[in-house]
């Protein structure tokens, strides 16, 4: 009986329109990416960065632990002996198209060098650009540091 009454008076339609009307005046939750950034959470894992010392030298010592621990095998390191007998990093490459952003590299790093950043803008027209090297990773650090300082946060 109630169903017939609701059907005749279109009650359910008005209830639905009511919900729409209610949300019309609420705060918007849709973001117009890429024109607008979505908020990210403190534990978000974005593109990696590698910390540098104050003199600009990388903190990475080329120990190969991140390469070993990486489950998607996206890190490739080549080291050698420098002219003064020091450990020299010839190549540090990270393939973002393979990376699953698990953060294991960050966990494994014994010298607090590699970190997961907050940047997630990785779209590009060619796969080649997904392979980033030590220079890009160090530059990422500078950007992350500047962003953090702007927000008054600590990196």
């Amino acid at each position, binding site marked *: 009986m109630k169903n017939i009454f609701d059907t005749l008076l279109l009650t359910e339609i008005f209830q639905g329109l009511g919900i729409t009307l209610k949300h019309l005046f609420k705060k918007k939750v849709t973001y117009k990416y890429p024109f607008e950034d979505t908020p990210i959470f403190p534990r978000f894992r974005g593109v990696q960065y590698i910390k540098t010392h104050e003199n600009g030298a990388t903190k990475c*010592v*080329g*120990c*190969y*632990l991140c*390469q*070993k621990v990486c489950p998607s095998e996206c890190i490739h390191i080549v*080291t*050698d*002996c420098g002219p*003064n*007998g020091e*450990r*020299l990093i010839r190549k540090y490459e990270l393939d973002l198209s393979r990376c699953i952003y698990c953060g294991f590299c960050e966990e494994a790093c*014994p*010298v607090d060098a590699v970190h997961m950043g907050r940047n997630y803008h990785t779209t590009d027209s060619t796969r080649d650009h997904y392979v980033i090297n030590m220079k890009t990773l160090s530059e990422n650090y500078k950007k992350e540091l500047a962003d953090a300082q702007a927000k008054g946060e600590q990196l």
Partner: protein
Amino acid sequence: MVTLKIDGIQVEVPKDYTILQAAEKAGVHIPVLCHDSRLNPFGACRVCLIEAVGNPRMMTACTTPVAPDMDILTNTEKLQRIRKTVIELLLVNHPLECPVCDKGGECTLQDLTYEVGLTKVRFDAKPADTPVDHTNPFIERDVDRCVLCGRCVRICDEVVNIQAISFINRGMETMIGTAFDQPWNCEFCGQCISVCPVGSLNNRVYLFKNRPWNLEKTDSVCGLCGCGCYIELETEGSELYRMGELPEKGANHGNLCAKGRFGFEFVNSVKRETSAKVRAAGELADADFDQAVVTVAEKVKSIRAQHGAEAVAVLVSPRLTNEEAFLANKLAKEVIGTGGMYALEPHSSLPEATYADIEKSDAVAVLNIDVTEANPILGLAVRAAARMNEAPLYVFYPSETALKRLAEKQFTGTPDEVYASMTRLVEGQGAEAAVLEVLKKAEKPVAVYNPYNTADLWFVSELKKQVPALKLAAARAKANSQGIVDMGALDAAKLKEGIQNKTIKALLCFGENPAVRTGWADLSLDSLELLAVTDPFMSETAKKASVYIPVATYAEKDGSFTSLEGRVQTVNRALCKGLKTDAEVVAALAARLGGSLPSCSCEVRELIRKEVPLYKEADFDGGVISYPYAVKGEFEKPAKAAAGEGAYFLYPSSLRLHSGSYTRWSPDLAKVYGEPKLEISPADAEALGLGDGDAVSVSAAGITKVFKVHVEKHMTKGCAALPEDYVDTAQIFSKGRYHKVSLGKKG
């Protein structure tokens, strides 16, 4: 035998066993740091402490011998606590730079720290900051990381017997170093690196290049000299990073020499050729593999049709595996139809004494060879006999060798004097008669000799007649020097004659480099219509070739080598550089010539078992072949060693970190010894007004060559020595192995 209990497990062991060895037999793990199976017990680190029921004091498992009815406990709470403290104390002064240290991943201290569950050191760490020593070309030394276990000192003393390093200072100041901080002057064998449990002594050739967990490991045999060392090739992709030791396997007990441990870099060399070359208009031009093979096959066919099959000769190198040499022989005999293949290796002597025979010997004679330089691992066996077995050691060689400190007596002098000494030895006259008596009285006498010097074979065969119990060890030079002879290689004298007479028109040269071999360097190969050469590098002979095919090294092929003790061992492919093996070249050539030969080593091995009687029952995984004789043939008593006119005696010295054509391409070995140097005594250097590095001209039999001088205090006055297997030196030694030469200062 003694019966005892270890952690409740009853075990029966020989009475001279230590508790550690008994525990190993019982399958009980006792952690150790300063112990190594190759060394005498030391008991320095206290990590292996154990408890014996009824004994209030703890004891070290590695030094305490077993006693009947012992009840040993290895893992009580008290022991765990003490072990933890011992590790903590070791870590007080040990800098924890594990990510940077090259030993990370294979460090015993790191492993023990994990094993005892140590996460925090209770004591204040006071790491020093001593600079890392890079003065040694092969060994990086960081004294701060040293835990003073003494393994390096002990192996340098007990096994290598060079005593280059020792503990210096006392108490807290104790460290590993050299007397008066002199440069680390040694044989560069790197045995100290191989036993260092921490990152104090590191391999500079491998330094920071990779990590142990990235490397794939393949058991194989060293392809550089005739010692036949069992090794581990450590690779990643197509790069060879390290040649490691395997103490538990092989007759070399994990010992390696400088060549084996540090000289492998030529495998990765960018100087290696990658494409075949065919000579066109006088120049070698790149060609593909098939084109090169077709060119060789067509030329062989036309020469065979024109001059007969005997006009085509096949020459093999001792770098070839047994399987490859066997195939080359089949190619020569069955496909081409010549008499067989040739090799520049002696046929009169075969292996007799094994390393074990030498180590257990009670009297050793080393006849006219610097064995520790030429065949370092054979040299270690001689040292073990003299040092550990206290066997009297007699050395006959023109100059003083590294065996000086162990030799009962050295017979040095000019080559003529050494020959006279050896003549008195075999005839039982003079001071040498006493040596003969010692050898005769010994139960297990051994003599090491140089089989490449035909004049020496008379002494050896005469000595064998005098001392029938004498076991002979022929110090063959290269990886498969023995194997290619076993596979039927013929004496190359006939080949030389054929090339000189121009009856041989085509030479298929597999891996051999006659241009740098004594006795062959002066031979002109210009009369040949076809010279086909396979070699990993553009060698001196390859430069003269009509067709050149680059081939794989020992690290890139499967097969087997027969060592100088007659031990057949399997060679395994560890990496691939995309190059053909000699077996593939032979099979491709055979196919083009209308024959059919397999290139797979397993198939060839079966053929070897069927067709080579010596190898019928051969165990290719380390079995020793029983040879029918040690020395055979009629030899003439050499009248005088040296021919020619001149004031100085010239003789071929050991190769000094080299073993022929391969190692000369190693950049690391070249840092120490890159070009042939003339060694003379300080007295002669003074008389000639020469100093180290000065240029000197050497004139012999109408040839004059210029070399750099190396003043060597062990050289005998009036003598000069040059290494073999270099173009210039091979040309001089082709005029006579021992020569009277005149020296003159140049410039």
